[in-house]
């Protein structure tokens, strides 16, 4: 699967299908700090992202 990280504008690829919660854990991201977007919908932590899917992980934490 292809993952686009925003606002970093970084792209990474992960092999195989995975639960969203496992993807976030692998990337060291805490739940509630990012939105996981597939197409024009959000994906909850327990949903599975297929190997050929493209998702966007968008940070929601801002500071300053």
């Amino acid at each position: 699967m292809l993952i686009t990280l925003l606002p970093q504008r970084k792209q990474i690829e992960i092999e195989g299908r995975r639960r969203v919660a496992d993807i976030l854990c692998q990337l060291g991201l805490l739940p509630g700090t990012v939105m996981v977007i597939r197409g024009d919908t959000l994906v909850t932590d327990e949903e599975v992202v297929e190997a050929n899917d493209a998702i966007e992980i968008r940070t929601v934490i801002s500071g300053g």
Partner: protein
Amino acid sequence: MMKCKRCRSKAEVQVRHHNAAFCRPCFLFFFQRQVQRSIEKHRMFTAQDDILVAVSGGKDSLALWDVLIELGYRTVGLHLALGIGEYSRISTAKTVDFALRRDVRLITIDLGADGVAIPTLARFTNRPACAACGTTKRHHFDRVAFENGFTVLATGHNLDDEAARLLGNVMHWQVHHLAKQGPVLEPVHERFARKVKPLYRISEYETAVYAFFRGIDYIIDECPNSEGATQLAYKDVLNRLEAVMPGTKLTFVQDFLKSGRHAFSASSDGAPQSCEVCGMPSFGTLCSYCRLRREVERRQATWKTPRAASGGG
């Protein structure tokens, strides 16, 4: 399959601190109802008030403006073009676009045109850009509200902002700040409007989801000056606690307001005087913003003098 708490259809968003999940329409209903409840519980304003909404172009302030419009309140936006390069240009463009699409009034102040863009203030005062930015924002928010007759000034501070601020105030025992921290700050000077934070019980995640669901085109990039900001460190600590104990941030803030804040009420700063330059509230002869501007003007003059001397010879 995770189901919506209200209608039992497939959920699209999980709100852990409420132990709930929602489909898109039910989340939007839930979000708007939460905002309305906060407004009513703290008597922030009514449908008869004219509300000035501070909008940066980010998700929180645009989500706030959007929900207040949807709830039928009379609002006008106020945007400061901070002059922080491409970041500010995009922020202003997105704010202007939001106002145009909804046909609502927006007041924009271009700090660069006034010679006091944030990078200029930071450069000539040796202060952190965020400190200069905060002082500048507060001054213009108060000034514009007063000059245009707004009785209420609304900002998009969310639960994460409030929890991080509370943690910072506790860590440094900022008793004067603890006395004032809350969703409503009543005016203590004739030129102050009532300051309100209708999103104070709503997490940063929820405002981002609301903005996404509503199709709000907000700036995703972070302010370049926020890198290493202490507020982000506090937020990170709180998010780690929240991950293992959902509801920590909400409890921290709500219980402070309910049981903790009154203990600091005697530490309040008291009523301010008026700045002798601009007339806005001040705790000295000059307000913080006029002091900042004076410092910049003084240092700019000393910078220009040697150049003018060498260039003119």
